């Protein structure tokens, strides 16, 4: 079989182009690889199996193609609309879908868990007849069930953000505010406070919970250890407040003046300026 060489020219051109692109791909791989490794590390894998059905092919391709953040934003806005209608299963599903699309923003995890732990028990109470009609035991059960869902959700978040203090704090908040479990909450506030990026209030709440649990000596030791580490130029560190708490504990525990804590900060008062707060 004879082929016409002029007719083959487009194919020759195509072959040269394909070869050129391949060669460029090979030659540029050393330049691309380190950058790609760094960028890839910031992009958690998508669990496509769970998303395909919920999103459809078009949106899934959009996600894979780099529109992940904006798709998640749009679904978060949709979540807010569903939330306004007090639709519990709808909101819960939508919250989980958003973080399945893009687990990177803490905002989604934190606000999603708050909807689950704080709003949804109220919706369930309303649906069951209102606060006056629903027995306390049932209210308590609703709180526990929703708190359990929220904590599980936040623990899932920790898989994507290991050791993130804001997530640990959020779990601690649920234990403290919804489950009234001061013991677990205190442990979690302590765990969060050990993270270098943790907000200063985590340590203060941990100490307060120890006091509520009657472990004043432990709280006193913790605050004495904490105070020298607090910066004076950060408004959130509140070393004066911590010192005030130390003084309160010293009063409560009857610690003699000579053995009382002596702060190193020049600005800090040596003795409590005011009577202990209730």
């Amino acid at each position, binding site marked *: 079989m004879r082929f016409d060489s002029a007719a083959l020219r487009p194919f020759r051109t195509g072959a040269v*182009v394909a070869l050129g692109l391949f060669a*460029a791909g090979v030659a*540029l791989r050393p330049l*691309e690889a380190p950058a790609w490794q760094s960028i890839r590390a910031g992009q958690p894998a998508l669990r496509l199996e769970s998303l395909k059905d919920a999103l459809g092919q078009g949106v899934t391709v959009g996600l*894979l193609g*780099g*529109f992940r953040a904006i798709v998640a934003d749009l679904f978060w806005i949709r979540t807010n609309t569903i939330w306004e209608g007090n639709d519990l299963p709808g909101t819960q599903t939508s919250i989980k879908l958003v973080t399945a699309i893009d687990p990177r923003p803490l905002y989604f995890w934190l606000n999603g868990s708050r909807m689950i732990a704080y709003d949804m028990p109220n919706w369930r109470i309303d649906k069951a007849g209102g606060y006056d009609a629903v027995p306390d035991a049932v209210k308590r059960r609703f709180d526990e069930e929703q708190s359990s869902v929220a904590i599980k959700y936040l623990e899932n978040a920790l898989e994507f953000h290991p050791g993130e203090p804001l997530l640990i704090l959020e779990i601690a908040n649920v234990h403290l505010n919804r489950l009234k479990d001061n013991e677990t909450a205190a442990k979690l506030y302590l765990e969060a406070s050990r993270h270098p990026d943790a907000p200063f209030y985590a340590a203060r709440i941990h100490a307060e919970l120890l006091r509520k649990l009657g472990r004043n000596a432990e709280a006193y030791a913790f605050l004495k250890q904490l105070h020298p580490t607090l910066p004076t130029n950060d408004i959130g560190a509140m070393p004066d407040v911590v010192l005030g708490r130390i003084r309160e504990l010293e009063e409560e525990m009857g610690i003699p003046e000579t053995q009382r804590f002596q702060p190193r900060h020049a600005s800090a008062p040596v003795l409590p300026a005011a009577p202990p707060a209730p």
Partner: protein
Amino acid sequence: MSVASVPFSFSRLSLIAGNTFLEAVRQKLFNFLLLLAVGLVASAQFFREFNFGSSELKFISDFGFGALIFFGSALTIATTAQLFFSEIENRTALTLLAKPLWRAEFVFGKFLGVFAVIGVFCALTIGLMMALLWHREGQLMDIRPEDFANGRLIAYGDLVVVGVLQWLKFGVLAAIVLLIASFSNTNLFTVVTGFFVLVICHLQYLARDAWGNVDNPLVGLVVRVLGFVFPNFQLFNLADQIGQGAGVSPIVALQVAGYAVAYIGVIGGLAVYSFRNREI
């Protein structure tokens, strides 16, 4: 017979580029897409309804970059194809190429014209987004000072870096579309193929992830070759990181920029080669 040669001229190249730019900005499509992008960025006002707090800035940034990437891709593909085929179909290419003009000057002139148009688009979209973010961030700093204890949250320099990298990505895309146009017979074929290639370039990383898991060695080879033939557009996806509050490493930014510039050169060169073989 010895004849004085006609050397490659940047002056002629910039003339073609300037003319292409002028033609592009006078097209309705450019203005339409620019308006859409600006509209989408400006619609960030809508996020105030949701009381997102300081996270509202993430939403503005995500939508801004979303508008930039989506409309920028559409503009790049449509404008490049349209500006190339308007020269072919209106036979102005005949008049031009009958002058002492290299086809390389024509192709790279077209590229630079389109690249400048996309540059204007990127600058306007990013500029508007930055202005909105700055304004809104200032308001939020008054409303929720606790969220801004360490000053402004948005790294505006990084926004510019990501904007420039997106522009370079559109440059690679424009070079790809010119390569397709250099052998294609119709504008429609070029636009459709350009969109397909855009999707492939965005998804080629999946093929690269998968090739190690493919049992059939032949399929594995094909997948691997595809991973080399198409540029990796996910590499330019740094906008998400900005939205998460993470900065852009200057080294990574330089590597990505180098990657884009190298690809523009290679694909542009292949477009010239293909166009030289084209009978007009």
